[in-house]
């Protein structure tokens, strides 16, 4: 069961913050989903392989060729903060 402490840890891990009302609502939806997960557990899956891809493609590979069609200026254009050549963030600790 999702606990308030567990939810706080999840918020931190995902770099976001909920209001108190949102936290209460979130815990309640987690509760709703628990019943759904339990129903999923009822389905026997021993010996069943996971299915990550719905289409059976394999070995989708490309040749080792360099292409550089995007300019630095265009990439940096939409940056919230940048210098002539780099993205910029507040100085990291140490």
């Amino acid at each position: 069961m999702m606990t308030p402490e567990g939810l706080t840890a999840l918020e931190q891990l995902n770099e976001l913050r909920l209001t108190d009302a949102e936290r209460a609502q979130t815990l309640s939806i987690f509760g709703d989903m628990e019943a759904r997960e339990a129903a999923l557990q009822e389905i026997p899956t021993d010996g069943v392989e996971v299915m990550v891809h719905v289409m059976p493609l394999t070995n989708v590979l490309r040749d080792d060729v360099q292409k550089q069609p995007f300019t630095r200026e265009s990439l940096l254009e939409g940056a919230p903060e940048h210098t002539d050549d780099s993205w910029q963030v507040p100085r990291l600790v140490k």
Partner: protein
Amino acid sequence: MKYEAVIGLETHVELATKSKIFCACGGHSTKGEPNTRVCPACAGMPGMLPVTNKRVVELAMRAGILLNCDISRYTTFDKKSYYYPDLPCSYQITQWFHPICRNGSVEVTTKDGTRTIGIKQIHMEEDAGKLVHDDWTETTLVDFNRTSVPLIEIVSKPDFRTADEVMAYLEKLKTMFRFANISECEEGAMRCDVNISIRPEGSEELGVRTEIKNMSSLSSIRRAIQYETARHLDAVERGTETLVQETRRWDDVKGRTFSMRNKETAADYRYFPDPNLMPILIGDDWLQRVRDTMPASVEEKTAEYQSKGLSEKEIASLTSERALCDLFDAVTALGRDPKDTASWILTECGGILRKHGQVMSELQITPERLSRIMEKVSGNEINRAAGRKVLEAVLYEDADPDAYCEAHNLGAQGDADAVRQVVLKVLDATPNAVKDYLGGKKKAFQALFGGCMKELKGNGDPQVIRALLEEELSKR
């Protein structure tokens, strides 16, 4: 009680590819101005999809073959999530569930003998970007050139007991990987995480384990291992502190390790299979093709060169660089003598590079040109000193050997008779110096020698001149 260290290594090696692992941007993290080898995917922008570089898979297979691993028949990519400004998508594509190689081993030799180190697995992954901290603006600058540059991570078993063994292992990986064109293994292209614990000798149990993250220089790795082992010993034997399982950072200036912030180490990476990357199946045919196209190993080359009569020192120097072996093989294939070829590459090319402040790995010359110079010298068309001069011009002026000789009127000076004529001319022209020399003033020899050199426009072989001078003077 006697204790022993138990050390395991996770070694990240940048692969030598033209493009990145999942996009077509240029590989090779050290090249280019910041953010010039970047596309929207490298900058974390949505919309682009990863497509795996085939060369990366084949180089990882090569590494696995060299380290005696089982190559997986089925291998997949997974996503690992965490937030850091050098990770533009906030996830790294790596291999968690089905790595490409498992169960290998490598022998390392130190002064204490040879031991076998187990390899748990090798997996492919993408590198992160680079952060540059700017004190002036109090900001950190983010460069994504290195983002998605292909890496393999080699995870050893905890089989090392000493820092010497770790050094020998890393040196061996470096040589092997450079030699097989897997990695250029330049500064920073090989980075290690080191796991350390200690236990009473003979015990099978493991002590509290700490991990030192992200070191790239061999000397740092050695010092960090020595420091950390001593710290563990002090804690266990003298109770200086209580060891906890944690991740630590090596500070090269302070010469000690520090505990890292809890947030960085307690993360749950939430690995899951990447739905955008289809599984890779490695069949017998493909594996055999990779084996067949693998460059000869250091051992194979060493045996070959021994049979050609090269000295141990020459073999060691040549096999330090794949490119040197390739050059040597090509020049000898053009009919040049193996001993002579080794000497020209190592002594002559090496000497000229040193003079220009360069190292052997920077040598660039076509086998045809080197062979041509050697041919001219061994055929007495020019002397060795002239040959050296031609070589320098070939290396630094992109000169053609024949054209250069012609343009600089090289050719006759190697001929002893021609030099003798010059010597006789100088002796006749400076009778005072001859008299001084014969009268016991040995210094006068230098003046005579200089005169000959001047006459030969600097193209004479000093040894030949000296010998002829002495011979002719003794006749007077």
